[in-house]
């Protein structure tokens, strides 16, 4: 069992409250997933640069002087904003691969959580409330965000096993369910050259989407083909730079509730997660259909694609 929450804002006036609203939703889902928690938040633009969110188990060692060390090695200015065990690096847009190499070399204890122009991912082991407090989630602002509370079934309770997973620039995935063909799929994806770090089933789901998109599929197409290629139970919520999407497997036993008003589109594993949102009493509340890919975007009209049987 796990809990998922998601909030996509249509009304800009709610943007300063995004972190606050998401934190309340996330903590409500504690009894669906008390072992770890994480959030992906789409916040400020990096102004032509790239944001690399990184994590260290020993931030007091790894993050000290990191900005100077990276700037010197890269020959360009890098700024570092530390939040507990995580840090957001502001780096030149074309330097992601080099910065990764430099980090591996200089500070091998640092792991990359996410990359993107607006996306930041924060996740740790612990109760959702403690994880939210540690990163100051309630004070964050942004256009949309996705949160996850984890009750591990398929692999160890570790930071890297927590959700969300980064699947590409500004893209992330959270999962409720369990994939049963993740071992064979992991072998296949590794042969294709996709980097997979853990024995976690969801990371394989994320890597699958990364691979599909590397092969030219859009995120929507990748999600649709996941309905054929992933065996098991899943409700996925994905984030992109300008929107978010939802897909459930054809059996759809993992719960999902959505609510929409003129101000937002919200997702919760249970209705409980949505009860404190503004205007929920008059919101359109419904359950997303099985084997159907839903998308909401700030730039295009919402889409609903039912997969052909």
């Amino acid at each position: 069992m796990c809990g998922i929450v998601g909030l996509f804002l249509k009304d800009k006036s709610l943007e300063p409250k995004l972190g606050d609203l998401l934190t309340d939703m996330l903590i409500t889902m504690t009894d669906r997933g008390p072992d770890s928690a994480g959030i992906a938040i789409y916040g400020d633009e990096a102004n032509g640069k790239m944001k690399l969110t990184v994590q260290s188990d020993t931030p007091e060692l790894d993050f000290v002087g990191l900005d100077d060390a990276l700037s010197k090695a890269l020959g360009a200015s890098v700024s570092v904003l530390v939040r507990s065990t995580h840090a957001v690096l502001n780096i030149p847009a074309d330097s992601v691969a080099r910065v990764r190499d430099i980090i591996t070399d200089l500070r091998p204890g640092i792991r990359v959580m996410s990359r993107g122009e607006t996306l930041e991912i924060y996740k740790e082991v612990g109760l959702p409330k403690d994880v939210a407090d540690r990163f100051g989630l309630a004070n964050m602002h942004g256009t949309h965000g996705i949160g996850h509370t984890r009750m591990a079934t398929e692999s160890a309770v570790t930071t890297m096993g927590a959700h969300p997973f980064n699947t590409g620039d500004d893209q992330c995935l959270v999962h409720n369910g369990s994939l049963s063909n993740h071992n064979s799929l992991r072998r296949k994806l590794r042969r294709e050259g996709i980097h997979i770090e853990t024995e976690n089933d969801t990371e394989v789901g994320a890597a699958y989407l990364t691979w599909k998109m590397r092969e030219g599929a859009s995120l929507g197409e990748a999600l649709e083909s996941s309905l054929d290629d992933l065996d098991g139970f899943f409700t996925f919520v994905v984030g992109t730079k300008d929107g978010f999407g939802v897909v459930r497997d054809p059996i759809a036993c993992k719960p999902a509730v959505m609510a929409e008003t003129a101000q937002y589109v919200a997702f919760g594993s249970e209705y409980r997660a949505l009860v404190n949102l503004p205007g929920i009493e008059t919101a359109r509340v419904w359950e997303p259909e099985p084997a159907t890919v839903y998308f909401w975007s700030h730039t295009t009209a919402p889409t609903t694609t039912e997969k052909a049987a």
Partner: protein
Amino acid sequence: MQTIDMAKVSLRDMNKALHAQAATTNQTTWEIVNPKGSHAIACGLDAPIDVTVRGSTGYYCAGMNQQATINIDGSAGPGVAENMMSGKVVIEGDASQYAGATGHGGLLVIKGNASSRCGISMKGIDIVVHGNIGHMSAFMAQSGNLVVCGDAGDALGDSCYEARLFVRGNVKSLGADCEKKEMRPEHIELLTLLLEQAGCDAKPEEFTRYGSARNLYNFDIDNAAAY
């Protein structure tokens, strides 16, 4: 009328107060406010009382109900009225998956739509859905009646036994061993009664009956190679 505010009273204490009502209680009308999607509201009641929940509920509301009439003035989460024995549960909004699952008796009325697996393994309950139902509904349904005024999703009545399924709209697909059946006068009579009890003005003649083809009841030796 007794009112319980779940913003002030814990779930456990609320259910305890309802469980304490005997057949002879004079506190026959209850209202529960601020449910906020909580789980197991008004679960396991066994007294002829009226309970109205003002708002939407989480998992297993009105589960195992006996005698009581429970109204949900909102939508219901998964497993509403699961294993109901008797009494009546009415949902003004929609119901999530496996509404009325394994129910032995009583009447479940869903005024909106029901999600997947509605009436799964039903064993005598009557379920009337004013709207549509999702996939795998009435899977292994043993007895009782499922009435759907709208459409049914995929695999309706898969591996069902003797439950009667009535659908007014389209059925996306029938499950294994479920077939269309003739509407006889006794079915019209039954349907008329159920629709009336459920406050639904649909005409019984507009419905199609489905039920077990009874081909799975006995082992077919020609299928031996499949095992």
